[in-house]
């Protein structure tokens, strides 16, 4: 009754399967033939009257709050382009996938968009972690990603276009501004992930070179909402300003605590790099009025292109919906891709890339004229410091005057040697 035959036959099957699998193995690492075979490159499906483009954003989970607005902005651009006749005579068909605020899911969905849907380009991702997770997928498949959010720099991928600010277009100008405003010491508060840690490393290098003092540095886990200790430390430090790289929900708790502790924007302003119009709305001007932000675009930015963008966005999604920097960068990224495709005269990825790398891709964006920097695949952007008003909008108080050349590795800054 208790024989072993069953197990043995199963074991034999397993063994056969494994051996078969192993003998059928493909390329070894460093094997030139294998690599070429592996990366034949993504094929864009241009057979129909429409070309698919991928939208990869978190529509659920903790990041949905921010990423849904980016998705909406991308859709707006796609609709506008379609209404104006499409790209190279083809309509764009958006395929939206949910990254679910989960990095492996981002990788999975990126692969799906590339190999199942055969999209011409993918727009999306917000967190650095999601970008890091999909980066190998795009490189392996030789497919294009347009990443629309300000980030920590120190990265260039041949298959990613970065349309948000890199550090020298946001963090460095913000520090310049604080310095010029006579702030001699800062306290660094951030969420515990890549962007704040890298940003703070840059800030410390900058401070060391410019005589600014960094009086403390604290990180809260993402999603943390308990800030009494950190605010106590900030208050005790007596810094003249706070550089805030907190993300999401943590900002709400931080600013409520900040005000409770009797700290004010006048005495110790907080300069935030992750608080845009949407976040202001959910934190409340009661706590935020007078605080500073650093971005490349505000809803109040002057110009006909922005008036048109704001009007179109509100018409499509509701009058109470503000526009913000990442949304604008996402919106712009679709138009930049369109310009690349049109210049290349083809949807073929290597040709689109070549057209962009040759330079001269521009777009009259809501933030002003943006130009793609061919070699780095980043974008020239104007840095802007804003002050949060009691009406929930952000008024520009300073800008860099002209678009700043992207420098993701901060190679042109002497104090930054050794950072990358």
């Amino acid at each position: 009754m208790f024989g072993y035959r069953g197990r043995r036959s199963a074991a034999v099957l397993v063994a056969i399967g494994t051996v078969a699998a192993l003998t059928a193995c493909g390329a070894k690492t460093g094997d030139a033939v294998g690599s070429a075979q592996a990366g034949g490159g993504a094929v864009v499906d241009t057979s129909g009257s429409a070309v698919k483009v991928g939208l990869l954003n978190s529509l659920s989970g903790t990041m949905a709050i921010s990423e849904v607005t980016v998705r909406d902005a991308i859709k707006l651009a796609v609709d506008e382009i379609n209404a104006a006749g499409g790209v190279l005579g083809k309509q764009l068909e958006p395929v939206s996938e949910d990254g679910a605020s989960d990095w492996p899911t981002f990788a999975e969905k990126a692969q799906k968009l590339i190999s199942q849907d055969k999209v011409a380009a993918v727009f999306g991702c917000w967190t650095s972690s999601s970008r890091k997770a999909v980066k190998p997928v795009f490189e392996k498949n030789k497919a294009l990603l347009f990443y629309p959010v300000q980030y920590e720099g120190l990265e260039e991928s041949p298959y990613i276009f970065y349309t948000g600010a890199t550090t020298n277009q946001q963090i460095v100008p913000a520090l310049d501004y604080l310095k010029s405003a006579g702030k001699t010491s800062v306290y660094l508060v951030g969420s515990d992930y890549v962007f704040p840690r890298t940003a703070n490393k840059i800030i410390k290098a900058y401070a060391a070179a410019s005589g600014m003092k960094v009086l403390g540095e604290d990180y809260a886990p993402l999603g943390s909402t308990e800030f009494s200790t950190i605010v106590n430390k900030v208050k005790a430090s007596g810094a003249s300003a706070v550089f805030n790289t907190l993300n999401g929900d943590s900002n709400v708790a931080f600013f409520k605590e900040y005000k409770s502790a009797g700290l004010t924007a006048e005495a110790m302003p907080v300069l935030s790099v992750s608080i845009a119009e949407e976040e202001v709305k959910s934190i409340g001007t009661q706590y935020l009025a007078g605080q500073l932000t650093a971005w490349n675009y505000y809803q109040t930015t002057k110009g006909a292109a922005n008036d048109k963008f704001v009007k179109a966005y509100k018409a499509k999604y509701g009058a109470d919906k503000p526009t913000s920097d990442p949304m604008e960068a996402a919106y712009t990224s679709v138009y930049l891709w369109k310009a690349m495709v049109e210049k290349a005269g083809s949807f073929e990825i290597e040709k689109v890339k070549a057209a962009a790398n040759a330079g001269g891709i521009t777009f009259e964006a809501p933030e002003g004229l943006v130009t793609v920097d061919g070699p780095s695949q980043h974008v020239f952007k104007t840095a802007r410091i804003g002050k949060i008003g009691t009406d929930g909008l952000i008024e520009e108080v300073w800008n860099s005057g002209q678009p700043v050349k992207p420098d993701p590795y901060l190679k042109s800054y002497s104090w930054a040697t050794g950072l990358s």
Partner: protein
Amino acid sequence: MSLLVGQLFSGVSIGAVLLLIALGLALTFGQMNVINMAHGEFIMAGAYTVYVLQQVVTSAGASLLIALPVSFVVAGLLGVLLEVLLIRRLYARPLDTLLVTWGVSLILQQAARDIFGAPNVQTRAPEILTGSVHLTDDIAIASSRLFILGLALAAVAALTIVLRTTSLGRRIRAVVQNRDLAAVSGLSTGRVDRLTFFIGSGLAGIAGVALTLIGPIGPAMGTNLIVNAFLVVVVGGIGQLKGTVIVAFVLGVLQATVEYTTTVSVASVIVFVAIVAFLQWRPQGLFTLRTRSLA
């Protein structure tokens, strides 16, 4: 010195928040052995109640005061609904209540996202609760924190009085100590269960009101808090409130102290290690209700 006092108060106020959240759990988990992971979403419901009320009542102060009883009832009713629909079928399977209520919490969160939108919403606090109270010239403590501490202590006092002196309290304790005997003695255990759940969940609603003063109001606001609150109840020992009260404050001060000297992430690991170590010493928690029936 001022920093020391400030930091001590931080610890106490972290403890007060923990206590306010854990109090309801002490009742539903401690007394009824139900692990309600949706407790965090009842907190969320309480916080959204403030938001909704403020659409009607413009005065921030008045809306907050009205919100306290209203949130209690809203969250309490959600709790009763949960008890009647699901928990009632699971009294023999306490571990399963954990998973089922986790599912409920996912559904409630998504519902909040669909009703109120994914972004956090904004509530106004009365000006008096956004500033700080100066004890001396250089020692100031946040008035919102003071309010929460007061609220937490008031909730403990009220709950103690209810449990000790009212007939409802006696019935709750009778059911906890011997369900079968209570049933045989003519007590409607079903009704007592529902009432207990109403109060426990209602306390979550109160906690939600308090949290609008210090934290974000959004669909995910409850999830971050729930695990720590459960730890408080576990370490405090089930069946008695005093353990929960003491442990909430001790953990709060421990967290604040370690966090001050190290980092937040090291602090949470140290707190966890401390808890495991503590359970080596007292596996049933700080205080236990000794009955013959538990070895």
